[in-house]
Structures are given as structure tokens and as C-alpha cells.
């Protein structure tokens, strides 16, 4: 499940600024795709695992993050072994493993807000063209990370409620209330962001692009 993967700590990686970690990750991604030798890539994977180990991630969190990835990597490895050759398959396996481990090390040691600050800074030149609002993009990313676990919890709640009514296998009974509830909370979230004075939209404006709604909520 998506959510913030950040784990508090004081490792060397924790102390690095977010931009530096993201830059190194970006550069590592390029280098890894240039290098073809499986032996070198295997060394890189071991090094990435060692870097991740310095963060001292909890084993449970690590298992949760890596199980799904391991299945995908195994499938890619098998496909390459069948349709290409063993050398290509191993190179691909080590290359992707290195990237995943490095990315995990970065996300486990970087707060979402620090990462979003970098995103905002990177997008700022585009902001001048009027095509992108960096603050809005960064808020949208944060909201996605924040609310995916909530939507998943809501999904489980509705699934259990429908199962109790004998509608366990009915996708409509599951999807319709989930969409309705999500949209309803989206409206409330927008109001909450407005209420907290988010000025990403325009200097005196509101996140949802409306400074106050005509009409109201009756309660």
C-alpha cells in the first residue's frame, strides 16, 4: 500500500539534503542503464543493499515493500531468460534491484515534504511559462500519498458492510459507495485546505480555485 515510507533516524543518508539524494538516484539510474556487464551490476546491487542497510529499516516494512517488487523482478528475469539470454536476464535483474534498493533508501530517509520541496523547485522554471503551478502539483502529490491508505481503509469498510448484507461479490455495491464517499471527502479536504490558507492557487486565493462558495452546507 502506498503511504509515506519515511522512517525517522540519524543515519548519514538521513542527514543528506533531499535534492542531493534525488540527484544521485537520478544519476545512478542513467549509469545503470549504460553499464551492461552483469558482474558490475551485481556489485552495484550488493552496494545498494549495503547502503539500504545503513538506514536500519525495520524488517517488516522492508518485507512489505520488497515482496511485490520481488515477484515483478522474478517475472522480468524469467521473460529475459526465455526470450533473450542468461546474461541479459541477470543484468536486468541486478540493474532493477539496484534501482529499487536505492530508491527505497532515499524514500525511507527523506520526508515527503522535503521531497516535494525539490519537486516544487524543479517545476519552478515551468511555472514561469504559466503551464504549471508548482505548489499545486506538490500538494496534489502529497494528497495522493496521504489519502491512498485512507481510501484503502474505506474500501475495506464498505467491502465488509456489503458482505454483511450478502453483497460480497457485487462490484457495483462496492464501487458506487466508495466513489461517492471519496468525492464527498474530496470536497471537505478542499475546504480544509482553503481554511488553512493555502495560497498555491493565487496570492489571496484558495486551493480549489474558489475563494468561498456561494451557498453553503446545512447542518
Amino acid at each position, binding site marked *: 500500500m502506498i503511504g509515506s515510507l519515511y522512517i525517522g533516524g540519524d543515519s548519514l543518508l538521513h542527514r543528506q539534503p533531499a535534492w542531493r539524494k534525488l540527484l544521485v538516484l537520478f544519476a545512478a539510474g542513467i549509469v545503470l542503464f549504460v553499464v551492461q556487464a552483469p558482474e558490475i551490476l551485481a556489485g552495484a546491487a550488493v552496494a545498494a543493499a549495503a547502503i539500504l542497510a545503513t538506514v536500519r529499516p525495520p524488517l517488516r516494512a522492508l518485507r512489505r515493500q520488497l515482496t511485490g517488487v520481488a515477484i515483478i523482478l522474478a517475472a522480468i528475469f524469467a521473460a529475459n531468460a526465455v526470450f533473450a539470454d542468461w546474461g541479459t536476464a541477470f543484468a536486468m535483474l541486478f540493474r532493477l534491484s539496484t534501482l529499487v534498493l536505492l530508491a527505497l533508501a532515499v524514500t525511507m530517509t527523506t520526508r515527503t515534504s522535503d521531497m516535494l520541496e525539490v519537486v516544487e523547485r524543479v517545476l519552478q522554471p515551468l511555472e514561469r511559462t504559466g503551464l504549471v503551478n508548482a505548489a499545486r502539483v506538490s500538494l496534489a502529490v502529497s494528497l495522493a500519498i496521504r489519502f491512498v491508505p485512507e481510501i484503502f481503509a474505506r474500501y475495506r469498510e464498505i467491502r465488509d458492510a456489503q458482505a454483511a448484507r450478502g453483497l460480497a461479490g457485487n462490484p457495483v455495491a462496492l464501487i458506487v459507495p466508495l466513489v461517492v464517499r471519496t468525492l464527498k471527502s474530496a470536497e471537505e479536504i478542499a475546504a480544509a485546505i482553503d481554511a488553512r*490558507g493555502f495560497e498555491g492557487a493565487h496570492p489571496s486565493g484558495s486551493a480549489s480555485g474558489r475563494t468561498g462558495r456561494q451557498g453553503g452546507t446545512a447542518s
Partner: protein
Amino acid sequence: MLEGVSVVRDGRAILDSVDLTLRERRIAVLGPNGSGKSTLVRLLNGLVTPSKGRVAVDGHDTAKDAALVRRRVGFVFQNPENQIVFPIVSEDLAFGLKHLKLPKAELHRRVLEALERFGIGHLAERQSHTLSGGERQLVALAAVMVMKPALVVFDEPTTLLDLRNRNRIRAAITEMPESAIVVSHDLDLVRDFDRAIVIDQGRVVRDDRPGPAIDWYRAHFG
């Protein structure tokens, strides 16, 4: 201050010609479901603008100076789940402060100070979705208070909470030095307030000390 405020939605009057001057330190807003209580308090933060009339906070028109008004008026919603927008608690508190362009150390100090104020300093690094209902409401409150508003509006802050957490929020509201306007069905919470306003069908039907106002409310809507 609300002057001749009406709010109309889909042709229906949610609020009808409301005139109020709100100066007391603790004000309760009571009323049955659908009476217009939430709309009334949302006007104070500029979340809703009047269809007719004028709402001003410290002389600032909420329709024209929404950003300025929101710096003075904090708003705590009924469901804190929708109010916390960042994955980590301390990040969420820092969200509002970021726009004040404070130095990082000052920002960090204010975040911790706000959390400690409500006895939840230990939650600073917790993931927002793992908090209990009471913890979420306290985090939402801390996220509002970190901005140092002069007035805090609470829209049914204890409705979704169990007794223990309800008491925590009650204590937080009672002890805070800032002015507060509280929409609530929790009559015990507002009993010691300075003023209680009862709303029904979009109109102020009683404006009194909490004791007589609650008795009147019970007699008419109980």
C-alpha cells in the same frame, strides 16, 4: 460581524437575514441538523460567502480579504481525517507555516510547540493514517493553532469521538486562551461558555447565556 447575511443554495435559503456581532471569548452555536449552523460558521472563515449581506472579521470583509481573514480565523472540522493533508504529522503542521517563509529552525520550533501544547509531541513523526480518532482531532487542532489564529471555529469537534477523546478535546477547548466559536450537539461542552446562539431554519431563534439557551433548546427540540 454579520450584517443582514443570507445564504441561498439551489433556491433554498440556508441562512436568512442573520445579524450578529460576535465578541465573547466562548460562543456556542446550537441547532438541529440542517438548521444552517455549519454554514454560519463557515462564513466566518470565508469558506462560504453570503448571497446577501456582509461578513467582516476585525473589519476585513471575508469575501474580499479571504486570505487575511484565514490568518485570523482557524477552522477545525468535524472529521479530522479530511483535514490532515500530509502523510507525517509534523509535515502537516508545517504545511500552513511554509507560506509564512519562516526559517527552518523557527518552523520546527513552532511545530513542536503546537504539538506539545496538546500533549501530542510524541506523535510528531507518526504517519497520519495510523492515528486514532482522538489523536487525529488533536493533530487537526494543533495544525490550526500553529498558525496562531486569534479565533478558532470548531464545527462539531467531538461528534466522532469516544468519551475519553471527547474529554481531551473538551479540555483543550476549555483551556485555550484564544477565542472560540463552537458548533456542537454536546451541550455539556458549551454549558460554561459566555454565549449560546440557537439556529433553526436559517434564522437565529435564541441568543442568550448558555444556561437559558440550552433549556430553551431542549424544550423546543429535545
